Every structure is written in C-alpha cells, then in structure tokens.
C-alpha cells in the first residue's frame, strides 16, 4: 500500500483493514501520533487527511490511499501548526503531554477552517479530544492566542 505521509510517499506492507494509526506508528515508525482508545472516543490519534482532522485509530489505512496524511511531526513546518505550538508553549499547556499531539492536530485543523473561532466553536471542535490532566482551559486560551497571532 502506498501512503503519502507528511509529503513523502511511503510503501507499506500492511493488511487492508489495518487502522491508519498502526500503519503510522508501528509500520512507518512515526510515534508522535498516539493510541488512546481505539474507537475514536479520545482524539489522541488525530491526524489530517487532506487537511481534515480524522481519528486514525478508526480510519482504515486503505482509506488514506491517494490522500495526503499529515501528522504532528509535520506541524513545525506548517504556518498554522507553528502558531499553535508557539501558543501552547507560551501558555504552558502541556502536563503529561500524551494527548497533546491529538489536541494540536485538532486545533490546527480548526484554525485552518475557522481562523477566529469563538468559545462555542472551540468547544465543538475540541470536545472529541480528551485530556485526563485537564489542560482544557489552557487549550482554549492557546487557540485564541494562536488565532490572534495569525490574524
């Protein structure tokens, strides 16, 4: 199976039904995308498929053929990703950090579609991403801050 991950075509020898998450982690060896629940309940595995935030744990890798897969590893080269990461750092969002790849991927997808989201829009876009450390308040303010910096 040929997959385009972070702008690179990669040939992966995987079964058709393997979720994209495991293709990315266990086969392509990119570990930034996290496993949290395996049923699209927590958002730790969020990646972009042609710019859309998707849960990689429930997306068969075969669905991604012919599409552009973008993971957390590519965010530092992305204008919106950079703004999000800078805001995350300056607001000191992270705690354990395990969910943050997914949070950042969801937040970046949000800002690409809606450059200036209000709280309700942030709630709608981000409530699929669980953080057990409870960094939610800082995530909200970091998204506002990144939106401001991009404006």
């Amino acid at each position, binding site marked *: 199976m040929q997959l385009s991950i972070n702008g690179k075509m990669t040939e992966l020898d995987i079964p058709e039904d393997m979720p994209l998450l495991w293709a990315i982690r266990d086969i392509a060896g990119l570990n930034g*995308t996290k496993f949290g629940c395996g049923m699209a309940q927590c958002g730790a595995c969020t990646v972009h498929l042609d710019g859309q935030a998707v849960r990689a744990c429930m997306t068969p890798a075969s669905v991604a053929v012919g599409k552009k897969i973008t993971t957390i590893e590519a965010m530092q080269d992305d204008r919106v990703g950079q703004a999000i990461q800078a805001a995350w750092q300056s607001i000191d969002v992270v705690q354990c950090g395990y969910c943050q790849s997914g949070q950042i991927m969801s937040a970046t997808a949000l800002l690409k579609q809606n450059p200036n989201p209000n709280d309700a829009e942030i709630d709608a876009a981000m409530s699929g991403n669980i953080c057990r450390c409870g960094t939610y308040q800082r995530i909200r303010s970091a998204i506002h801050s990144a939106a401001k910096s991009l404006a």
Partner: protein
Amino acid sequence: MTINIARRGFIKSSVWGATGLIVAFSIPLGTRFMQVAAAAEADKPLPAPNAFLRISKDNTITVILAHSEMGQGVWTTLPMLLADELDADWKTIQVEHAPAAPTYIHTAYGIQITGGSTSTWSEFDRYRQAGALARALLLQAAANTWQVPVSALRTENGHVLHGKQSLSYGQLAEAAAGLPTPKQVTLKTPAQWKFIGKATRRLDSAEKINGTAQFGQDIQFAGLKTAMVARAPVFGASLKSVDDRAALKVKGVIKVVKVPTGVAVIAEHYWAAKQGREALILDWNIADADKIESATLVQQYQQLAATRGVVAANAGDTTTGLTQAKHTISAEYVLPYLSHAPMEPLNCAVKITDAGCEIWTGTQMQTTDQAAAAKICGIAPEKVTIHTQFLGGGFGRRANPRADFVSEAVQVALAANLPVKTVWSREDDIHGGFYRPMFVHRAEIGIDSNGHPLAWQHTLVGQSIMKGTPFEAFMIKEGVDATSVEGVADSPYVKATAHHHVSLHSVESKVPVLWWRSVGHSHSAFVMESLIDEMAHASKQDPLALRRRLLKDHPRHLATLNLAAEKAQWGKPLPAGVFRGIAVHESFGSYVTQIAEVSVNQGEVKVHRMITAIDCGLVVNPEGVRSQMESCVSFGLGAALKSEISFKQGRVEQSNFHNYQVLRLNEMPIVEVHLVPSTAKLGGVGEPGLPPVAPAVTNAIFAATGKRIRSLPIGEQLA
C-alpha cells in the same frame, strides 16, 4: 567529559535485604509523615551531587530526576531547586529520569516512588544540596585554576567570576570532578533565590508539542515484538483451556504463550496482536469467581454501615451527645469504584538477556517493579534495569505495589523468549482493576441550634487498598487502614466534637483496588463537606460562616476559605440561575477551598466557574501549582459528574470512554486559582485540589435545587 560517574555503579545490593524486597520502609501519613521526614534530615549525609547532575563541556547541565514526570511538573520543579543553588544558566538545563537505584529512593518513603503529592517537598533539600555541592566544587576548581581563594570568587548564570575573568561551568567540569566533595554546604536564604517562587514554564513542553517526547508506548527497537494478553473476564477466574489455532493463522502473529494472568499473543505489531487475541478461543473457570452485582454490593455495604466497625477514632459517648442535639443529620453516602484511565494505556517493554532484564516503561514505583521483575527472572534486583519513560498520566495507577503490568510483561517476555512490549487496549485498562474502591459512609450527627456538632457517629465501608501489599504492616494499625479513613478520623470537625465515633468495615473482595488521585480523601472530603453543608442548612446557617466558626482554630483552612470567598464575592448575587457551593479540605500537607458556580437546567448540571484557593506552604513554581489546581478540578469534576465502574454478573460494565466517561473540554469550567502567600513548610499540589471539588459542586446543586446529592456520580440524578 562529565562529573557523573557510571550510573549503574550506584546499584548496591545492600538495600535489598534478605527478602529481596524493601528495607527501611516507612510511609507515615500527612503532617505526621513530614515531621518524621524532618527529624530524619538532621542525620542524613549530603547527596552525592554527581548522582543528581552532570555538567558537560558544552555547559549542558543534566538534572537527573529521582521522580517520574507524569504531568505534575517535576521535570521543571526539581531542576529549579538545583539550579538556584548552582547559579545555573536556566537555558542550559536538560533533564532525564534516574535509573532504578538506591541513590534515588524517596527521602521520606524509603523506596523509589512518585506519589502522595510528595515530590517537591521531599526533594526540597536534596536537590538544593546537590546544586550547592556542585557549585562548591566548581568554585574550588576555579580557585585552583586562578590561584586565588574561593572567597574572592562569585558565581553567576553558569559561570565562576573573578574580577573580569570568567570560566564557564563546562570549562571547569573536568577539574571539579577530581576534587574531594565538601562535607557541608550552606544553602541560600530565600532572599537569594532566583528560581524558587518564580512562575516558570515547563522544560518538557517543546518535545511534548512536536511529537518527539518518548512515552513507554513509543519504545521501538530491532527485534521488539508487541504482545496483548487475554485476561480473565471476571476477577478471580482462571484459565481452563485455550485454542490458539486461529490466532496463530493471523498474519503477523508469532507466538501464543500462557502467563499467570492469561494468554499472551505475540505479534509483529499491535494490529496483528489484537486480531490474534480476538481469534483465541478461551474457556475460563469462573465458577468460584465473584459474581459481583453493583446493586447488591451497595446493599451489602449499607447493611454493614448500619453497625459500627473497627474503631478509628473515639471520644465521649455519641449516644448521650445525640440525645442532647437540637437537630440530627442522618445520612448515607455512596461512592463508586473508579478507574484512573490515564490517557496512555498501560504498556511495558522487556528484554531479557544473560546480562539481566531491561525494562522500558512509565512507572511511578521503580523499586517494587524492579524487585518483582528480579523475582520472576530469578536474578538479583541490580540485574534489572528500568528505563523510566515519560508517563502518559499516572494518577496512582502506575504505582502498583503488586507491580501488575510490569510483572506481566516480564512473564510474557520470559515465556515468549523474545523482547516484548506488552500493550493494553483501553478496554483492558478499564477492565483491569486496581480501582479506587467503592465506599459507603453512614453518619449521624447531632448539632446545636448554631449548627455546631455535639455528637458525630460515622461508619465507613470499603475495601482496603493496603491489605496484602508490603505497605500493610505500616498502614494498617489495629485493623484500620489509615487511607480508608483519612479525612474523617483526623478531620478537624470530628476532632472538635466532644462525642465522636468513627469506625470502619474493611470489605474483602476479588476486585483489585489501589490509590487513585487523592486516595481516601477522594471519597472522604465529598462526604465530610456535604455533611457540613447539611448541618448548615439544618441550622439555617450560611455554609461559609459555619465553616469559619468550626475552623476558627485552623488558620490555614481559614485563610483559604477567606481568600476564595473574597475572590468569589461570596454573598453577592450571581447571574440568575447560577448558585454557589463551597468546600474546604486539607490533604497531603496542603489546604484547599473550592467554590463552585453552578446552574441546573432540566436536570443538566453546568459548572461555570471554580474559584480555587490553596495554601501549600512555600511555593516553588506558582505556574505549576496553578496547572495542578486546574488539573484537579478537571479530574475531580469528571468523577463527580460522570465516572463510575460498575459490575453485572462479575463483569465490569464499562469498557472505553463512551461509557467510562470523563470530563471533556466543553464541560471545563473557568478555573481561577489563588495562592495564599505562605512561608510554611511545603505541602503537596498534585492531589489536594481534588477532594473539595465534588462537594463544592453538589453543595451548589443543593443551593440551586434543594436536592442533596448523596451518591456519585451525579449522572442523571437531577433528571
């Protein structure tokens, strides 16, 4: 060239004693425990600075952490302590987890552990001393180089200075390494601190936002296979037989092996292991296993709660006291089993060779994991190397005296004769036990017309988390597990009541239980602070005013009450439909008041704002304290509103985040954290914010609806 000596050299056999387990172990509680620690400090030798830091020629200062970073911020706080005494350049600080070794045992607990909200206060002296010792060596090295007395030198920002001359710590490191370590050092005065007390951003931020931070789950190396274990569907069940023919046909499955906890499928990757596990045909012997039903269990606990148990605190005669009362509060509170559900499902990578056993995992309890692995492999503990990775959340689950996930991974690697990473699915985690135990409290409180308690009769029913662990000997005294009754037996309200009786029924069960963020306080504070609210309403007192009176001799409780009340403008009206609730609780050496602003619409509870005031003594990193308070609100609120582990026919009814629900971003209130200025001895911050969260919310719900929530989660109770 670095100052450090070979790190594995620290592992000495002497600490392991004849049993191969723990020596010098003590775990006294709360403030008692800090007094013990303080008394011990006087005779303690200074730490070997090179065990806690390395200085490289390029000026990098690597701080070696005796505690595990699980989100609570030790990756930043402990380096602050060391950097202050070292006069380090903060930009040159790097951090790594220590190996499992006696050098890094907890200064108060006597084993290597991260828990009990102790990391910062228990390391306050050791990391400062390590920094001061290193600075003294660097000064001496510079004095020798320049042939001047040490008194002519000063240090600043990673350099030793003499007039206009300057040498960086990196330039001096090699010379300093050869010098004899001073016998004593003088620590700085608070006025000289540059880092301690200053809001400092986390040092682990960058790697955690670009995907490079390495968690146990991320361990990959050539030859490492992935394993998933099929475990018993009911606690206490045993394996009768397994048919693994279909599993072995799954592409990528390598082996199927039996281990004490079940059947392990070893595969090239997670997906194959999971599919292989699903293809196993398993027959379990569940005849003698517990067929627990939550509803029945609650009834059994309630029956027990109606009679007194083993005495935990007793004074006067509650019967007499109750007859003198103006009002009597008679209430029963029920709290469920809870899962920790850290975001990173449990995992552990193990490689066993002739040289020993290597383990990569996120653990809060290296000493017991090391001992357990050694025992399984039949080797000495020092032959077990633990590479602690970042923990994707711990909350107590990764500190298991039974070393469950580490032991199992070692068993799998041993049986498979392969390097193996055991990965738990979320379902495995939710079904995996080691829950916060279910508790029922029953209280009869007689109060006078001012709401003051004359008699307090209180019975608790729940499983002991200490029974059957190495902690039992220290933590269970005369039949009472101190962690079961903490927050009740030692409550200032109870102690001030002339006639009081607190007792405990410790229930036996096959359901494995464990400490869960804030341990016994996670249930006791909810009950105690709800009861105080019940007393206030029964005697028509303002809930804040009553607490102020009852806690008049407890200035630190009072300070947080007053600060929170001032910031929340207690007494001033809120927007229509929004109501306040208040709760205060001491735990882990710190004092926290939570004020919740809540509305209830058609049974839906919305928490708009939490005002948190904490007195945790001297603050090392105010930003870290604020983060932990936000974290406690989120964790506590999720449990209060939604989380529950329940049983049907012995099986856990929940399986993943769709039915083991936790707080989500849209439910997160605004959290305002206020710190009481304090120079008191340091307390904890990882847990103390949590206990008063639930009662603040349910007390606000009472203010809003007149309905007293006496069982958690709140769930649909208001519908």
